[in-house]
């Protein structure tokens, strides 16, 4: 009887293992295809030149620059607001209706579909604020979208600061603000940065929010001001794969661009994951 139950257990555990394995396999298959077909497209020229011959040859420099520019604006918007929101929620707020409302807002903001952010950015930043299709409008849109991720990460980092630190600081006569500024935030800093990298990496790969707010089909010049329109890596992949003049002939460029985007995003993620693992070890000691 017990033997039979243990056999059932063995079979189920095997199934669970296979399920976990399937995820890894799916990721590996995608990465394999992009890598094996994309690396041939990547050359020095590909990374440092603009596209030419109606985007059937040349490089993707304007897209790389555009994506970085959009990310910078995203950081400038989301990091200060996100960290400050987290500080309020974790350090100041007492549990109550107001906090519950704020959290409800954050949770729902996190659930808003990316294309709806795009619609909002188009209607508000591009049209009402007259920014047009620009780095500023796209970055602001991405910034609002990234906000919940950064708030979540920062809160987690603030929570991991032991209460004894705060009490020690308050006990020697520091005010709450001094305690936060000089004790809590410095200790939480690495955690906040790790979470923010994860948030920004997500913004870097997003297409829908910038389609009509920041990114354009083609622009030969690199952006000179924050009100210029840009090309962006994710949008470039979409354009080449669905609307280019020669979709089949530019396949290698599409794979190459996808590979660059993945390397950018995974690079950020891996550094964040490694940084976090190191921090956890430190905390344990």
């Amino acid at each position: 009887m017990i033997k039979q139950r243990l056999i059932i257990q063995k079979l189920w555990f095997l199934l669970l293992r296979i399920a976990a394995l399937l995820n890894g396999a799916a990721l590996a298959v995608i990465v394999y295809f992009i890598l094996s077909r994309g690396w041939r497209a990547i050359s020095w020229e590909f990374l440092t030149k603009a596209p030419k011959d109606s985007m059937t040859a040349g490089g993707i420099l304007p897209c790389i620059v555009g994506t970085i520019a959009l990310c910078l604006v995203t950081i400038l918007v989301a990091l200060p607001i996100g960290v400050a929101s987290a500080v309020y929620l974790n350090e100041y707020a007492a549990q109550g209706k107001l906090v519950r409302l704020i959290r409800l807002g954050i949770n729902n903001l996190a659930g808003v579909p990316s294309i709806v952010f795009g619609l909002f950015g188009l209607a508000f930043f591009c049209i009402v604020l007259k920014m047009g299709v620009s780095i500023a409008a796209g970055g602001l849109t991405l910034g609002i979208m990234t906000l919940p991720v950064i708030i979540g990460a920062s809160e987690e980092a603030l929570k991991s600061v032991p209460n004894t630190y705060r009490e020690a600081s308050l006990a020697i006569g520091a005010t709450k603000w001094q305690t936060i500024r000089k004790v809590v935030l410095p200790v939480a800093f690495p955690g906040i940065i790790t979470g923010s990298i994860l948030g920004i990496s997500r913004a870097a790969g997003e297409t829908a929010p910038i389609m009509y707010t920041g990114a354009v089909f083609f622009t030969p010049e690199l952006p000179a001001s924050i009100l210029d329109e840009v090309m962006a890596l994710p949008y470039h992949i979409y354009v080449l794969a669905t609307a280019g003049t020669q979709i089949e002939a530019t396949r290698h460029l599409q794979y190459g661009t996808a590979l660059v985007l993945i390397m950018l995003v995974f690079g950020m993620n891996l550094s964040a994951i490694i940084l976090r693992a190191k921090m956890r070890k430190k905390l344990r000691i």
Partner: protein
Amino acid sequence: MKRQVIDKGVHSGFLVIALFSITALFWIVVFLFIEGIPILDHVSIKDFIFGKYWYPTDEPADFGIFSLILGSICVTLLSGIMAIPLGIMTAVYLAEIAPPRVAEIVKPIVELMASMPSVVIGFFGMVVVAPFIQQVFDIPVGLNMFNASLMLAFMAIPTICSISEDAIFSVPTALKEASFALGATHFETIVKVIIPASLSGICTAVILGLSRAIGETMVVLMAAGGAAMIPGSIFDPVRPLPASIAAEMAEAPFGGEHYHALFAIGIVLFIFTFMFNLIADYISYKFRQVGEASL
């Protein structure tokens, strides 16, 4: 004295910033409605939602989004059928069975899955999966509901898995030990004690995963085929709500009927995800763990 004044000022400053998220959410809703409601001058709510014909550029235009809504729902359900069991099983594996060393490798893999840009997944569905399923199932086009659902499942799994894992992990050890003490095997404990005890968290995970799938744009834009028709089988092309907005916004003249109709689709989409999130929020708040007791 001065220090206290600064302290009070800083406190209110942080409060104001913390209100930013909910303010942003509020303005998103306001703008969706400002730009979306004018479509009701041309079509009634009933015809908009239940109208079967979506020909926004014809003269006169037809603005019925029923096939788009159905497309979204079908794609999401089908991806749920694939992602929910796989996500939860992976979560159980990670939280209960995996040796710590293995878990340390699998968890970053799940995180990398979550960080994979959606446009890359859509691209993969288009150029690799589409020809593949076209061959295997012997169908005329590979860009269809099945393809998009498969890709969406890949995107929903990380959400379902990581939130479920947290829930399973936070089940008090005492419950587990009590079950062992009664002679239950590890597997019986998982099925009869651990999963019921973490059910609210798992439900939240599933709802948030589906919410992510229904709102996802690039995948359904690139891999779903894009035909605004009521699907007859899982190998029919569909045109979910986000795909419509993304594909048509470029050609919709600013301030025209089509433009307003696309914002109205945005409202419908927003209501879907908002409901999902409210339910998830309600479940996790109502059944939140208090001390040792849950359920």
